[in-house]
């Protein structure tokens, strides 16, 4: 870092001194990378990162191809009116994807650079440039490339217009996603705003879940004949047409709509209109840039995220100390004095104040809404009979990080777990029990939502799903305990971004999920093939017995493993960088 200190007076973001700083940054990243390879774990991380990169590349190329094909079909069939749908899909993917994946990705906290004589413009540039390496940005860029190829193949003369529109659209998305992250980190850094964001998030989830069934209440009766179905569609079209028209007009003023509009206007030989749309899109990009500027400038001026807020000044507050304490003490507590109750209570409190984990739990519920709509609107018109196990399995994915890195959020508190007279296996038992109960609660919510959306599932499906959960949970907990001790990484509970995740842990735990789900799918499929669906229940229960035995056996070895890896756990989880 001496390189950064050695530079003279700094000028613009592209001056020689700024370039020296960028070079020092690149060297720093390189040294961190090389030093990371010194340990076996570091080498394993690199391997996992390579595999992840290949997977993400496949995902990006696949999505890019789908978007490109969609754009090609729409433009070549002169249905450019529907082109905004493609741009909206890319935009949502770009903006929501990072929040979904934030906790799994390793990110570099650029805040450490602020102690050096770095210009704001350089800091800003680096912040944006580092964002280019985000998975969502790479996938988004591949989608844009796909659209460009698709549109150009359909209408070669739109080659340059498409490039312009997509360039502006990409610039908006890159700046916007960085701005969103920067602001989320800001809101999460203070308790008051953190609680507001948490409450809004939960209200958002619940309202979506309640709103959708309400809107679809009238369509609970499935049409019996093609005539009835046609009549139903006609009625819906008439009913919703004004809404769709208004929504379409409104979205044209938003970035995805503007990009699509520019292309449509260019295709209709209205260059002035296309330029105007691109201009407005550019203004959106500028607005995103200014939102980001405002946040980064505050950080640049010395606002430290997570720092102690203003001091108490009121004397009156001091006099009501005892009253406040009594009030706080009367808050909820789990019964019993045992360390297990204390640990579960602590887990519950920490979870409620950790938005990334709440998001991980809530996101699958949100997806039930989307998936349920797909199954409701399938060709046969009958609800998918295996919807419940599919949704429950999906909900389990939200717990991946919680199972596989269950010490990650302890931070320096990990010392306490080793210092206290409570065996580590009891700590793990408490965490496992808490996660077990929490998942059942989540699965119950999924069940209620599925019933609301698709009607009552068959009794045998409910029983088989419950039996599968009894098998899947001990499996995940048993292996998760080992991952937590062998591949731990620090989670900063107040951050959505700037986390230093572990690709090795993420990949291994995703593989575990895949195995558990494949076993479930194979058993369900075989029983369906034999027309003996009830057989899934005893099969899963037998597997659950084995899984519970493995989990208990693993729990018995936790103390030994934890003590063996005590140094690594303390060093990794107490990292402050």
């Amino acid at each position, binding site marked *: 870092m001496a390189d950064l200190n050695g530079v003279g007076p700094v000028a613009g973001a592209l001056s020689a001194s700024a370039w020296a700083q960028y070079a020092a940054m690149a060297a720093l990243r390189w040294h961190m990378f090389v030093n990371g390879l010194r340990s076996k774990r570091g080498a394993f991380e690199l391997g996992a990162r390579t595999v992840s990169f290949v997977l993400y590349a496949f995902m990006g190329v696949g999505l890019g191809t789908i978007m490109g094909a969609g754009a090609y079909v729409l433009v070549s069939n002169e249905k450019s009116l529907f082109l905004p749908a493609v741009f909206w899909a890319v935009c949502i993917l770009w903006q929501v994807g990072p929040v979904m994946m934030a906790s799994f990705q390793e990110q570099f906290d650029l805040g450490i650079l602020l102690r050096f004589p770095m210009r704001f413009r350089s800091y800003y540039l680096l912040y944006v440039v580092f964002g280019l390496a985000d998975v969502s940005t790479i996938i988004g860029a591949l989608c844009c490339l796909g659209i460009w190829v698709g549109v150009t193949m359909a209408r070669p003369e739109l080659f340059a217009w498409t490039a312009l529109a997509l360039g502006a659209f990409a610039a908006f998305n890159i700046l916007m996603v960085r701005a969103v992250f920067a602001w989320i980190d800001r809101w999460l850094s203070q308790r008051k705003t953190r609680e507001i964001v948490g409450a809004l998030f939960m209200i958002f989830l619940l309202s979506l879940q309640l709103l959708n069934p309400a809107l679809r209440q009238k369509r609970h009766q499935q049409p019996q004949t093609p005539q009835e179905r046609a009549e139903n569609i006609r009625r819906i079209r008439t009913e919703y047409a004004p809404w769709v028209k208004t929504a379409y007009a409104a979205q044209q003023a938003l970035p995805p709509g503007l990009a699509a509009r520019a292309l449509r206007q260019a295709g209709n030989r209205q260059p002035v209109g296309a330029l105007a749309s691109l201009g407005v899109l550019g203004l959106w990009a500028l607005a995103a840039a200014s939102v980001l500027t405002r946040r980064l400038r505050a950080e640049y001026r010395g606002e430290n995220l997570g720092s102690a807020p203003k001091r108490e000044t009121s004397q009156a507050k001091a006099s009501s100390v005892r009253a406040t304490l009594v009030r706080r003490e009367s808050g909820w507590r789990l019964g019993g004095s045992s360390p297990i109750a204390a640990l579960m209570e602590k887990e519950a409190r920490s979870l409620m104040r950790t938005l990334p984990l709440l998001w991980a739990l809530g996101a699958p519920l949100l997806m039930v809404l989307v998936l349920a709509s797909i199954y409701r609107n399938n060709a046969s018109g009958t609800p998918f009979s295996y919807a419940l196990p599919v949704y429950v399995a999906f909900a389990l994915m939200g717990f991946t990080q919680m199972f596989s890195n269950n010490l990650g959020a302890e931070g320096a508190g990990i010392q*306490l777990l080793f210092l206290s007279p*409570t065996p580590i296996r009891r700590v793990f038992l408490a965490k496992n029990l808490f996660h077990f109960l929490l998942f059942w609660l989540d699965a119950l919510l999924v069940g209620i939502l599925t019933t609301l959306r698709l009607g009552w599932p068959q009794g045998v499906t409910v029983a088989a799903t419950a039996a599968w959960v009894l098998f899947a949970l001990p499996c995940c907990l048993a292996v998760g305990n080992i991952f937590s001790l062998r591949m731990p990484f620090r989670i900063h509970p107040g951050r959505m971004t700037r986390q230093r995740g572990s690709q090795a842990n993420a990949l291994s735990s995703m593989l575990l999920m895949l195995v558990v789900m494949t076993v479930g799918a194979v058993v369900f499929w075989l029983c369906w093939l034999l027309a003996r669906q009830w057989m899934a229940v005893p099969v899963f229960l037998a597997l659950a017995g084995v899984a519970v035995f493995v989990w208990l056996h693993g729990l018995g070895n936790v103390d030994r493993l934890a003590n063996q890896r005590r140094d690594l756990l303390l060093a990794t989880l107490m990292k402050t960088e």
Partner: protein
Amino acid sequence: MEIAAIQTHGLTRRFGALTAVEDVTLSVAQGQFFGFLGPNGAGKSTTIKMLTGLLEPTAGTIEILGQPFGAGALELKRQIGVVPEGMALLGRLTAPEYLHFVGRMYGLDRETTRQRTQELLEFMQLANESRKLVTDFSHGMQRKLAMAAAVIHGPKVLFLDEPFEGVDAIAAGMLKTMLQGMLNRGATIFLTTHVLEIVERLCSHVAIISKGRLVANGSLAELHAGVVSTLPEAEKEQRLTLEEIFLSIVGAGGLEPAQELSWLT
């Protein structure tokens, strides 16, 4: 013969090729305020981590209150309190919630935990911050909370790793009063700090570690006498401060004279 509060024999810790602590044998009597000093990187924190079960010794034995101590000595852990280097705080809890959690982890019943939590918060002047998350505390407030957590279960032996770092004079005075009270009631305190004035004022016995080896161990008077005996006859009468004793033992004179940094203004 009275059982020592802390007793080590040949305590050694290696990290690969590096020997951080080598063959440390020391004994701390019950009721002693013991200062453990050393320059940066001498092995103080490594030693205290081994003594509290946070780090496994490569060789040697540890006895606390006459019983062998290790990570698995759970009953013995109830007798010790620790303010470790990283403070062991849980940022997502409020101070009352954290103390309540710690109390229960040490096996206190709910009512006792609640009562002691309240008393400790008031004593540490943290009671009016009871709604704030620990992560939002200033460094000094976190130190005070870590100290409260270390004593909530009434330990017989207290290990403190740099407890006064970042603590203001008022809070430091308060902590010293609390420690003195504990000492009067028979507790043993093992302290590492760089603030020699505190050691001089509070500790009855001192050990000095340098480059992983114990280079001095005894009462302040014994250390003073040891250093004075090495001085020329004419200087034997002078009264040395702990800083002078420390520098003499650790051997500041043995270091190469620092090269002048001509570019430094």
